[in-house]
């Protein structure tokens, strides 16, 4: 749990202190497909589907994935 609090504090502190420093014309790297949180739709989709079927935990990234009677 400590690591989560640490990550949260780090996110707020670093995020708030630098949120105005990246101007639109400096977002060339961030605009790349490889820099998106989910750069490959199906790679992520298949992983979610496999681990939903084989583990007791699921979700965390988004909502609305649909149901499955996976066994």
């Amino acid at each position, binding site marked *: 749990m400590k690591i989560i609090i640490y990550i949260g504090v780090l996110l707020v502190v670093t995020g708030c202190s630098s949120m*105005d420093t990246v101007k639109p014309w400096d977002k060339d790297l961030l*605009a790349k497909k490889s820099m998106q949180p989910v750069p490959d739709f199906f790679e992520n989709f298949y992983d979610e589907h496999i681990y939903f079927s084989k583990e007791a935990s699921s979700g965390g990234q988004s909502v609305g994935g649909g149901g499955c009677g996976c066994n």
Partner: protein
Amino acid sequence: MQLGNIKKELGVATCALLQVPAAGVHAADSEWDIDTAVLFYAESDDRVSAFEPAIYASKDLGDGELIDLRLVIDVLTGATPNGAHASSVPQTFTTPSGTSSYVTPPGETPLDDSFKDTRVAAGVDWTLPINRLQRVKLGLNGSTEYDYQSLGVSATYLQDMNNRNTTLSAGLAFNNDTISPVGGVPTPLSNMRAAGTGTNRVGGDDTKTVTDFILGITQVISRKTLVQLNYSLGMSDGYLTDPYKIVTVVDQSGLPATSAFTNGDLPYLYEKRPDSRQINSLYFKTVHSLTRDVINFSYRYFWDDWGISSNTFDLKYRYEIGRGYLQPEVRYYLQDAADFYVHNLKLGDPLPDTVSSDYRLAKMTTTTLSLKYGHAIGEKSEWSVRAGLMNQSVDDGDVPAGEETPDTDAIIVNAGYSFFW
């Protein structure tokens, strides 16, 4: 040639201003962004294998309005553990239909090989801009398979802030699922019956509802770094039991209590899980660009009211090579057991309210290693192939030798081809 490059650079610059993926440059030309993919998943020892082709199509309708369509077909075959553990004596089980039986030899984990299914799932997402900085994404999804139907709706609100360096999101989803098990819904905690002697069933089908909430923030930290933090809450109600899973009842000698049951009752009880579940997760992701390569790391802490908690780490390193890239990935997952998970039940002990021997609810780890290669073809298309090995290892604790849950090993291969049309 130079004109082409200038056009491309202008496109990238426009993307940078709008903070949309470079792919959006082409999509804005009223083209469909199409992703096709296929997954092959196979577990060792002739257990479950899956073949899963899929297609995803996205179109920019202008002014920030987007539509996404997806279709997935999932063909499953093979044998799946029925929940009973290995024993030093042969074990006889009844197939879900109740009409035939199968025998598991001594020392082997009981597997039901009548498992076969085809699932078709489809979904549509519609992103609607409210104004320059706010938008709503509405979703509809449905799936059907032989013994399971699912229908769901979702809505996510997204708000950009701070020169679009911050995006806040809030989402809600609702699913209504119907389970129609082969042979009917087993009476929870009743005995599996010998083939042809009738079945302990309470009905033909049952339902469950799932409601999910998510709150998230995506923050640009620097020109090269993006972070995301989500909190998710999910609530399931209804039939959450696996109708095909059983629990072994053992006698004083530790063997299946065959002689203690008569008139066709077998020493195996149908499992029973609670009829509600609340899950929570905190999900953190960061994407960082090195000079050319990209690191993508995520961590999830998950907990629920069944006593399960888990930690998931995932690290990808994208190594750029000319027009292609090589991406090794390692994923490590470890979970604690559900409160009602047992190795078996002892004859004469009080029957618990809820119980399961499904190894997926046990204390265990999953380790996956994979390698992906992707290659751009011209300006508008890309293909990729990924191959991986997955290992699941259950910590059975103190169980008699020969009854341990075997590891699950699987190969995962998926290939994709994306293009604009």
